[in-house]
Structures are given as structure tokens and as C-alpha cells.
């Protein structure tokens, strides 16, 4: 795995948009008998500038806590975290960050225009810049004709789009999106993905927290998988989906039994019979030599190969396996 992963450097790196080192966060609840919840247990990772980075994990993994620590919404217990070269929560850093929280709530008394004006002013923008930017942003997120409509009349998807617009309002260097496509229709999602790619082209860094792994797979350069407060794995999509447990799909003209018999020394995952006179198998292969040996074995059995292709594992499959391998969380 070649991408930045479990970085343990405690120095701030100006090429990094986000740098997290051994970060811990413990929540304490209750007044007298305080209960502890360890949301982050020593997480470390880095996000280079200009990337689209996915933060994945099951429910309760600590993803939102991680984001909130970076933004200063929640205080870290220990460890280091930097955002755009400044300590997590730093107000100057927040000037260059756009955030779309999960289940965000834009006050109901706003219209689209006034909401963008409000959040723009909170980000330190001048009224003139806000006026110039608002129509462009509303068009970008597909709300061109909804600027004067009250937010309370927006659908869930429209509120999500407006939320994205307010995050983009001040042209931030770092965009943090928590479930950005929640409630958005497929067309909207596609538009959003294009928007993110355009931002990446302009050297903006984007951190996405999403459960929709298909979406992540389509847009992210690198991902990190959190589980029970710890980083399990990090890397590019291809690194996470390609590993020693790759599979090879071979199709022949002939009977299943003949094919299965020829490949009896291999670990068969699946046998398929898509059409009469054709048989397909999916076998586990470790490396290229296994692929060569499989081909030789089939040819040696006088079977005619009509299909030969490595079977790529999805991100979801990789994710599930990684989480499963991580085992139960410590008490």
C-alpha cells in the first residue's frame, strides 16, 4: 500500500490538509456515576491536500467524532490533530473549511438566499461577495429557482443541496462532508460527484464520511476505515479491493463437472452454468503463477477456454471483511 496510511509523524506537514496522530476522545456522561465511552482510541492518519478522501466505518466507529474534533465542535482527550496546518479547532483554520454535517438543520425562518447570506457572513464574507456568489451556488446545487423559497418548504434532498451550497459559499480549501448524498436523488448524486471532482481539480481537499460505499468508490482517491475508534486500514480504493484473496473467473465450452474436475486442486468459490454447453467457475488465486497454473490445467484437460478474467472485489466486500477481521471491540 503506497498511500499515506498509519502516519505516526507528530510534525505538521504543510502538504497535508489533515493530520491526525494517536488521537483519543472519551465521552463522559452523567453527573455522579459518570459513564465513559471511548469514541476514538488512538487513531492516526493523514490526508494530503488536493485529494478526495473517504472516511468509512460502521455505526459508532468514531467517524463523526473525528470530524468534530477536527472542527473543534468536540474537544480531543489526547493526541494531536491538525487541519490545514493549524491545530484542530483553530478558528483561523475554520475560515478555510466548509462543513456539511449529517442531519444538519438550517433554521426554518431562512430562505435559500438568506441562509447563504447568514452562513456566508458567519464565514467572514462581505455582502457584495455573498450577493455575487449566491446565484452561482444555487445553480450549482440545482436550487436555482428556490432562492426565495422558505427552507421549511424544502424537501430533504433540497435541504441537503442547500447545506452543500453553504459549505461551498466561502470557497474553502477543505471541504468536510458528512453523508453528503443523504436524501439526494441519483441525478443529484451524480451532479454532486462531478462538483467534487471539479473541486479536486482546483486543488481543494475533500473529506467525505459516507455509508454509501458505491459512491465513495466512484469519487474517492483514498479511504480510511475506522472501526471501534481505531483505524483498521487506509489506502487507495484499488489497494483495498485487490489483495491476496483475489479470484479468477474461467469459462469453458463444456460441462461443469469436467471443469470442476480439472480444477479440483484449486479452491472453488462458485460454479455457474449460464448457458447450455458452457460452464464458469470462480477460483481463489494468490498470484499470477496460480493464474498460469489454472490455465495450464484446464488446457491439459482439453477444455476450451472461452472466458478468463480476474474477479475484482468490491469496496463493500473489502470493508465488511476488514471490519469482521477486526473482531469485537474491547470492553
Amino acid at each position, binding site marked *: 500500500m503506497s498511500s499515506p496510511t498509519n502516519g505516526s509523524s507528530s510534525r505538521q506537514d504543510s502538504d497535508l490538509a489533515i493530520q491526525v496522530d494517536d488521537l483519543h476522545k472519551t*465521552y463522559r456522561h452523567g453527573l455522579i456515576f459518570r459513564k465513559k465511552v471511548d469514541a476514538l482510541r488512538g487513531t492516526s492518519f493523514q490526508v494530503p491536500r488536493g485529494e478526495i478522501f473517504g472516511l468509512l466505518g460502521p455505526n459508532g466507529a468514531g467517524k463523526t467524532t473525528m470530524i*468534530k474534533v477536527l*472542527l*473543534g*465542535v*468536540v*474537544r480531543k482527550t489526547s493526541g494531536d490533530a491538525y487541519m490545514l496546518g493549524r491545530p484542530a479547532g483553530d*478558528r*483561523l483554520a*475554520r*475560515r478555510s*473549511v466548509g*462543513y456539511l*454535517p449529517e*442531519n*444538519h*438543520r*438550517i*433554521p426554518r*425562518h*431562512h430562505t435559500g438566499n*438568506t441562509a447563504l*447570506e*447568514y*452562513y456566508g*457572513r*458567519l*464565514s*467572514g*464574507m*462581505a455582502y457584495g461577495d455573498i450577493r455575487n456568489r449566491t446565484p452561482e451556488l444555487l445553480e450549482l446545487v440545482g436550487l436555482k429557482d428556490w432562492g426565495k423559497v*422558505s427552507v421549511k418548504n424544502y424537501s430533504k434532498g433540497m435541504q441537503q443541496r442547500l*447545506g452543500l451550497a*453553504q459549505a461551498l459559499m466561502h470557497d474553502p480549501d477543505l471541504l*468536510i462532508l458528512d453523508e453528503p448524498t443523504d436524501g439526494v436523488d441519483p441525478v443529484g448524486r451524480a451532479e454532486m460527484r462531478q462538483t467534487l471532482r471539479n473541486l479536486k481539480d482546483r486543488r481543494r481537499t475533500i473529506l467525505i464520511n459516507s455509508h454509501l460505499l458505491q459512491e465513495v468508490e466512484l469519487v474517492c482517491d483514498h479511504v480510511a476505515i475506522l472501526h471501534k475508534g481505531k483505524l483498521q486500514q487506509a489506502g487507495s480504493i484499488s489497494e483495498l479491493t485487490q489483495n491476496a484473496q483475489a479470484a479468477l473467473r474461467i469459462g469453458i465450452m463444456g460441462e461443469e463437472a469436467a471443469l470442476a474436475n480439472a480444477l479440483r486442486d484449486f479452491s472453488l468459490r462458485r460454479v455457474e452454468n449460464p448457458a447450455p454447453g458452457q460452464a464458469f467457475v470462480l477460483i481463489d488465486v494468490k498470484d499470477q503463477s496460480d493464474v498460469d497454473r489454472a490455465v495450464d490445467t484446464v488446457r491439459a484437460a482439453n477444455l476450451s477456454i472461452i472466458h478468463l478474467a480476474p474477479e475484482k472485489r468490491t469496496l463493500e466486500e473489502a470493508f465488511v471483511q476488514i471490519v469482521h477481521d477486526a473482531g469485537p471491540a474491547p470492553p
Partner: protein
Amino acid sequence: MKAYLAIIKDSFREAIVSRVLWVLLVLSALLLLLLSPFQVTETAGSQLIATELRDPQGLFQRIYAGRTSLTKSPEKQVWESMEQRWRDQLQQTAEAGEDDFMASAARFGILVEAINSAIRNPDFYDADAFADFSLPEEANDLIAQGNDLSETQIARRNRLILQTAFSSDISGAAPWQITVSYFGKDFYGPLSGEGYEKTEFVTGWLTWFADYGVGVIGVFCAILATASIIPQTFEQGAIDLLLSKPVNRPLVFLTKYLGGCVFICLVATFCVGGIWLLSGFRWGVWHLPFLMCIPVVTFIFAIYYAVSALAGVIWRNAIVSVIVTVAFWVLCYLVWAFHFFGDSAMAPEALVTVSESEAGLIAVRENRRTVRWDDGDWHQVLSPGDVQQNPLLNLPAPLPIGPTYDAANKRLYQINSPGLFSRTGPKLAYADLAEDGQWVEREGLDAPGGAEELFIHNGELFTVSTQGVSRLDGNPTPPDEQALLWGLVNLPTPGGEKGGTFVSASEPLQISQPFSADVDLQSGKIAVANSKHVVVLALDETGKSYIVERNREMTDEKTRLAAIGGNTILTAQEDSWVRVLNVNDLAERATFKLPGKNTPRFVVASPGGRWFAVITHQKRLWMYDSEKDQPVSPGVSGQGDITAAAFSSDDEILVVDALDAVSTYALPDFSVTETRAPEIEGGRAFMWYGVNPIYTIFPKPGELGDLMRYMVYETADKGESEDLSQQRITLNVWQPVWSNLLFMAVVLGLGSFYIWRKDF
């Protein structure tokens, strides 16, 4: 800065969109519509009001006796001008002879109504009846117009004639009286006298309305309207967005709070400003200081809103915010109530005069009871008279004159002045020290009206009153006769002693009230001071009569108190100036101003005239050294709680505090030589150690109404009487401001700290 201005702007936007602002403005507009049909009409003063009667008993006796006169007289004319029904009722009360308070009150009210009916009578004026009186020019002008007068003019004419003929019994009418109408129908008035001049009346009612209407009901509505602002800002989803921006958390909280206050300030401006405009355009009263109610109402709201905001930030629930705020409101009221009623119960108990003689330590309480220190506590020796003994009544009345001790006869004297509903005039009361050491109280004879000093010199009992100096001739017991009026029957005294009488011991002086008098017991000289004169009286060769030795006209027309000792007279004025005069020529040799906002209540002189002390309404002690001719900083403890002081000699001063403790300080070094203090127990202990400390630090939003009145009227005195020695309630209008500000700072500080530390 942009961010925080955006937050404030957002508060207004929210209020406008949510229609809260419109609702409050509509309610305010409705209120103005409700007030606009009121009309306040001012006409020339004519009707008699109760407080204008100086001596109701004396007036009634004269009128009642004069009804049967064969010749024309003012008394007969008044009686005959009264409506028949009032005459009948007065007749009944005169014949009733009941000895109870309610009958006295009824007689008093009937007398006022009866005289007013005479004032309204067009036939009231008779040239023969009032021939002996020099009527004012205004009255003569109205008389000259004959019958061509309106009802108002008739009443005004008759009033002027009446108060001229009965000048010692009726004070002058205020130039104006007012009537209040609603939709053209009279429902209140006519009212005249102090406080009923139109501007003052309108401003007073509007200030009351601003205090209770806007300051209570309006603030409560405002709390309901703004209760959701803070909770909604900090609820999940919204707060994440907000805190991701480059803003400071405590500042977000404080800015939201400030936005709410600004919003309510605008509504208060609309409401109070609207009332002010209504007052000006509708009633012609443009009292600009009334607009000071706006910041005060806003301040009251800000205190409660601070509590609401803190609750909103912790629980993030508008309903909980309202409940907590209401609970705080109730708590503030309870603290105030405990303090107010406790103080009211204890205040009449405060010792306000003290003296030390062969009789021991004698003092007079605010409730006019005379007490003596004995066996570690104060015990009553003289009571204030019959009516005032009703414990449910704490009616305003002058303090007893004296007491003074006759060592030869072992007798303590004082003069009890009548209260508002007293059936009798001033009486000499005395207590004899019996063989067993007990004091036996007795009621003495009638005393001259308007007495201000009572003293014994060379074995003679003298009093100084509005008629001059009088001397008791004979025994202090009442004359052996029966009085039929009012049903009062005097029984012969034990032992069959013949009663005495007060005889004049000076030329008639006609001293106008209020005045102050003091005697130098060493020289026998008397100093009398009022707003127009300072007079020195000295004994003649007989030693039983006084002559005027010196008279100085005072041009400043300030009510003043006086004390005399040695060659010095010290006067303390209502404007807090102290003037020091020489006895021998009444030349002014020094002037000083009492420090701070102190108004004098009593002045006393040491026997030899070296020291003078001024005790103020603010319970502070100021002293003057006549030898060095300069003020002295009194090294006494308890400034702010000192209720009385007296000199037992030229070397000692007795100082009394609010807990009835008397400390004796040696002069000039102010070392404490003796302290006589009763045990504080029961209710007093509870108040002193429990309620008062809590009250001091607790916020007092409800008392900002006093601040409102202070800013509107520019005075902090309540119930001001011309008589400086009468108790005045001087409000400390700024103490509630500081305690409230401190409270707000603590609450907002807590809220800011909570927000700063909270993980959202």
C-alpha cells in the same frame, strides 16, 4: 465582528418571520388604543381633600358649635351651606359618643364630604359672615362677578373664602385640581393637592403603568416570546453548522442573548414611546424623563432573559427555559417579600431618639412608644395615645415631643401629637416612678397644638409650639370637668388633685410649621427655626417667661432643624446644608454640606455646646466641633445603621443602631466606654442574620421600579413630608442595579463557560 452582527441580524429576521415581533407590536398598539380614550382635565383647585385638614377635630367643634350662633359667622355659614344629608350625619356622629376608631374615621370622612358640599353651594358666600377677613384677590375678583360664574368658579371662590376664614384648620388648596374621564365620562376626581398637578399625576400613573404593566406583564410576554431563541440555536444539527464557522462559542451565546435584548428594547421603545406620544398629544403632558422607562424595562427583561438563556443552553428546551425563569421570578419575589414585610414589622421598632438622665436611658421608637433601658432590655414606659395603640394600624403621626425628666418629682413627661384619625388633640402624657421602681403611666392635660419642644428648666415645664412658649401651671392632670363632645368623659384624678393648664410664657409668636425648636438647658435659651426665621428666645427676669432676643430672617426658605448649645446654633436644612450661627448675634460663621446624599432628620447639641450631631434619614451620623469650628469624622461603627444619637455630657455621645444597641463613645477620641445591647432573638435575629444577607446579594429585578421612578421624577424619596423629623423612606435605587448587574454577569458567565466546555 461580521459574524456577530450577522447573528444579531438573524435574531431580528427570526422574530419577523415567526411573527413574534408583529404580535408584540400589535399588542402594544392595542394597549395604546385602550389608553387613548382617557382624558385628564385640569381646573382651578376647589375641592377639599382630607390631608388639607390640619385639625379636623378642632374645625368640626367650631363649626358644630357655631351652627347655633345668633349672628352671622363663617362657622354658621359653612354649616348652613352644607347639604342636609351631611348635616344630619354629622349630627349623628356628634351625638353617638362611641369610643372606637371606626367611628372616628367615619366622622372624618363625613366632615370632608360635608365641607365639599358647602363649597359647591352657590349661596355659600355671605359678605356679612366673612366681613372680618381679608380675602385674596382672586376671591374678590370672583365675588365681583356676582352670579355670573360657572360651577367651577363658584367652587373656587368658595374654597378661597373658606381657607381664608379657617386658615389655622385648612391649608391652602392647590391651584389646580384634575378630573379623569374615559370616553368623556368622569370616573375619577376631582383630585387636588400634592401629587395631583396634571403633569405629576399623568406622569405618576404612566410610570406606575410602565412599572407594572410593561415591566411585569410586558416582560413576562417577552420572556415567552424569546424563550426559544437560545434552545433552537444550540440544538443538534444547527449548532454543528454554527460552530464549524470561525466564531467564538461564548461570543455566539452572548450575541444571541444581546440580540434578544435588542429586539425587546425595540418593542419597549414602541410601547413606552407610544405612551409618551399619547401622553403628549392627548393630555398635553410631555415629560421627557418618562422615556427613561425604556432602558429600565429592557434591563428588567435582560435579567430574566439571562436566566432563560442559561436554562436554554443547558436543557435546550424552550418550555424548561420558561419554567426556570418563572421559578426564578417567584424566588426573587419571596426574598423581597420576606425582607419587605420583615423590615416593615421591625422598622417601627427602631429607636429614633435617646436621652440619658436620672431616669436612666430613655428612648422613643419609630412607632412612638417610649421605652426605658432596664435589666438588659427596653421596656415601655409611655404609650403614644389611644388610637395608635391598635397594633394593626401603623398610621403616620408625629413622634412624641420629649420625653423630658423631672428629677424633683420623679416624673417623665412627653406630648403625644394626634394622628390622622385621632379623636383628641395633643396631650401631655407622663409616667411617675413608683416606690416599687415601676413606672405608672397617666394621661395628662391638653397640650398646646403644634408643639415641637418640651423641657424642664428651673423646675418649670415649658413647651414650644406654634403659639410660642407655654408653661405648665399646676399639675399635669386634666382639669376636673366633663367634656360632652365626642362622648369623652374625663374622670377626676386620684387623690382629687386639681388639674393644671398650660399658660402662655412668651408673646404670641405664630410660628408657621414645620419648625424645629431646641433648648440650651444650661442657659435656658431656646432656638426656633423654620423656613423663614431663626429666632432666639431668652428667659426674662422672672425666669418663667421668654422674650425674643434675636430674630434672623432666612431668605432661602428651606425647612430646617436647629440645635443650640453654648454660643452656637447649628441648623441643618432639607437641602443637606448645615449652617452654624452665633447665638449672640445670629451671624453665620460657617456652612458645610452633609456628605453624599444625606438628608438631616435630627440635630442634637451637647450640654455645653462643644459638640453637635446630625442624624440623617440615611442613618448616618455627622458631627461638628464648635471649639475647632469644623466638622469631625465620627469614629463610630455602624454608619448606615445609626438611628439616633444624643450627648449625655460634653465628653460623651450615645449612638443607637438599628438593633437597639446603645454605644457610649468618649469624646474626642471616640473610644467605646459602654455598650448596652439587647439580645437579638426571634424574628429580628432571623431578619438580621438570615434574610438581610440573602437579600443583599440576591438580584432584585422587581425593585427596578424604584429606579424607574427615580429616573422619571429625579428623586429617590418616597412619602416626603415637610417635617424633616418624620420618617422618610429614601430608596437606594442603585443597589438593586449593581446586584442585578452582578447577577447577570455571573449567570452569563456560567452560560459562556458551559458553552465553552461543552462537547456538542
